[in-house]
């Protein structure tokens, strides 16, 4: 599962895509809209994507995870449109026989997503909004 959705993400769907009896560890990362950026109050985030390329880049991250951690299974879902404070914009679920690789692969996946998946966000404040760039170095 590597896809975009316009709906609220159900983390259980993403978890269940990787849950299996060989896996003793299941790690879920949720990226959640935070209510502040430095000292400004954030009201919501608004996401858009180059959809076809975003999904293929997410799948490519999945392939790289598989190569690097062969016993891991991963699923990723990213939401588009308005994501209110406290709601998830992205959910990444990783399962592995043991927790070390699961934690590592989970972190790798979110770092790579921020670095290369063509998705953009507007950060909306009470008195305006900006296109907010990630700090990760580009591919």
């Amino acid at each position: 599962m590597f896809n975009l959705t316009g709906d609220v993400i159900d983390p259980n769907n993403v978890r269940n895509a990787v849950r299996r009896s060989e896996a003793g560890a299941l790690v879920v990362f949720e990226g959640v809209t935070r209510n502040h950026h430095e000292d400004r109050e954030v009201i919501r985030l608004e996401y858009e994507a180059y959809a076809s390329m975003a999904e293929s880049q997410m799948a490519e991250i999945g392939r790289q995870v598989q190569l690097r951690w062969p016993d891991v299974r991963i699923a990723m879902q990213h939401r588009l449109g308005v994501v209110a404070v406290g709601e998830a914009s992205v959910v990444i679920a990783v399962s592995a026989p043991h927790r070390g690789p699961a934690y590592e692969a989970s972190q790798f996946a979110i770092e790579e997503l921020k670095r290369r998946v063509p998705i953009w966000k507007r950060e909306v404040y009470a008195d305006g909004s900006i296109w907010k760039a990630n700090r990760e170095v580009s591919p």
Partner: protein
Amino acid sequence: MQVNVLYFAALREQSGCSERLIHLPEGSTVLDAVESSGFGDAAPSIMVAVNESYVGLSHTLMDGDTVALIPPLGGG
């Protein structure tokens, strides 16, 4: 030759459109397409994908390519 340029996010707002066909001489590069679409100044701060793969500014374009101008990312 003809390529389809896609604009996203801040670049879409600045250009006023989300896609545009542009005509370039055979052998033109991605940089030529970026300059032709009016974003030559932005070239150092954007990435470019041709047919959904990231390429460098010196990549040579072919007729019918889709060139996506990708401003700084904000996923996750």
